[in-house]
């Protein structure tokens, strides 16, 4: 089944990113919703749906709290335990198709930087954490080391992810990390968790993001050009944690298969690509599994420069979590919508019609969406 022609994104809101001391995650989420509503020319009472997202490892983000602060009583509301925005968008599309709601705000707010959340605290004390295996850089580093071993991927090839995203970020006023990063400077950075450097791992930041999703039939009523949802797909690997191969996350290929089947599109149709990047390893893996290059060829593909400004596959044109801000992937979809509208100033991709956003929830789930200027 295809969702093509059924739903569209008609509003985008992003708050200031960085440090927002003294503010709660719910408050920031409400600010983002308010900005998205204004962008769509709507008032809050026009919403009949609200889908919120837990505030990372911080406090807040539950629909009952955000909805109360927003002062609305929509027909439908829900909270997702995990971010990346793809899952939230998909739930909104499902709610619209089911007739549960027609104008839905999906939102995320986090103040993990101001809350001084320590991402190095293990979830439980087992043999691995006792040995010092903490932080997402651990499993991501294992996957990259294995990729290097199997395919000969080099530090310099891999470094093109962080370096290219920094170049994009320098064209994005919202981005937190604007300082130039050359390949030489990247390679001079000491390892954080070898083979990962600091530049390969997400920053921690505060901020909010929200989008307004509605039925495609109404999309023309809004002031800004709509971003139509052309295809969605998800998969899980809930049982996969007990074999080493799961670190390579080969099941991501199943999302690609289903997304391309449901949308009737393929990687050759994508004008702008967004990949959620808690570490750059995720970008390497998803470039391969979504068919932008063969599995194992990610390093060589990156070294050819396609993902830089001016390249043929603009990737994470917002700077991503490595350079723009850590919004659990939410800003990637906001940027995709703005690119389709032509709002991106010096980093605007010419003639962009189709954008794709791929994300994962650690080693357990994958999701992707294709959005387009045309229905």
């Amino acid at each position: 089944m295809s969702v093509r022609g059924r739903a569209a994104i008609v509003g985008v809101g992003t708050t200031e990113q960085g440090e927002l001391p003294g503010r709660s995650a719910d408050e920031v989420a409400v600010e983002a919703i308010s900005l998205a509503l204004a962008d769509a020319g709507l008032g809050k009472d026009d919403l009949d749906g609200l889908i919120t997202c837990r505030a990372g490892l911080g406090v807040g983000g539950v629909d009952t709290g955000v909805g109360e602060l927003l002062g609305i009583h929509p027909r439908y509301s829900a909270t997702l335990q995990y971010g990346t925005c793809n899952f939230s968008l998909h739930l909104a599309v499902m709610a619209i198709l089911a007739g549960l709601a027609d104008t839905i705000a999906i939102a995320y707010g986090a103040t993990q930087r101001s809350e001084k959340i320590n991402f190095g605290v293990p979830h439980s004390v087992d043999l691995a954490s006792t040995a010092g295996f903490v932080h997402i850089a651990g499993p991501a580093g294992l996957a990259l080391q294995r990729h290097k071993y199997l395919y000969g991927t080099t530090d310099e090839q891999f470094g093109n992810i962080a370096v290219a995203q920094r170049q994009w970020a320098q064209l994005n006023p919202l981005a937190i990390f604007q300082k130039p990063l050359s390949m030489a400077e990247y390679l001079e950075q000491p390892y954080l968790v070898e083979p990962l450097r600091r530049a390969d791992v997400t920053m921690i930041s505060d901020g909010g993001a929200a989008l307004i999703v509605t039925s495609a039939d109404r999309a023309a009523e809004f002031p800004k050009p709509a971003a139509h949802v052309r295809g969605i797909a998800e998969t899980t690997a809930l049982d996969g944690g007990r074999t080493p191969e799961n670190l390579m996350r080969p099941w991501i290929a199943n999302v690609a298969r289903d997304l391309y089947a449901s949308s009737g599109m393929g990687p050759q149709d994508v004008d702008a690509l967004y990949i959620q990047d808690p570490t750059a390893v995720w970008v390497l893996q998803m470039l391969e599994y979504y068919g932008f290059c063969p599995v194992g060829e990610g390093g060589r593909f990156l070294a050819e420069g396609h993902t830089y400004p001016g390249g043929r596959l603009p990737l994470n044109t917002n700077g991503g979590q490595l350079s723009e801000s850590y919004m659990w992937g939410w800003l990637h979809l906001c940027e995709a919508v703005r690119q389709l509208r032509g709002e991106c100033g010096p980093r605007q991709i010419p003639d962009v019609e189709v954008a794709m956003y791929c994300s994962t929830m650690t080693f357990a789930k994958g999701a992707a969406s294709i959005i387009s200027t045309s229905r």
Partner: protein
Amino acid sequence: MTQPRLLPDVKNPLAAPFWAGLREHRLVVQRCPACGTKRYPAAPLCTACLTPGGEWVDVAPEGELWSYVVYRRALSPAFADDVPYPIGLVEVDDARLQILSRIDAPPDSISIGARMRARFTPVTETVTLLSWAPAEESAAAHD
């Protein structure tokens, strides 16, 4: 190895036999009484056939290094005195179980695919930890 400040709860009923095994320098994991599937880490039921419980059985504490990382900076303050330290994922020969722990070897000497053998190190009266070492070196030191 520097004595870790992060210690497991060895009395937690679910995993207590695992930690008791390490104290005796044995690697023990659960085996499903119904379908025989071995599992690590401990779980209250067999994730293959959902039969509750499990018998604790010995597995040979050796296998192949699947991948490794080297923590060059302490991402948790508990390990500030330990950096740099390598962590490896070893695929244990028996049942392809994956066991992640510290590697007792200089980072430069580690290579994927190497044969690894467990080393058991008491760190308190009740806690013994397992780390991995290249098989030849470990054999010379302990067997």
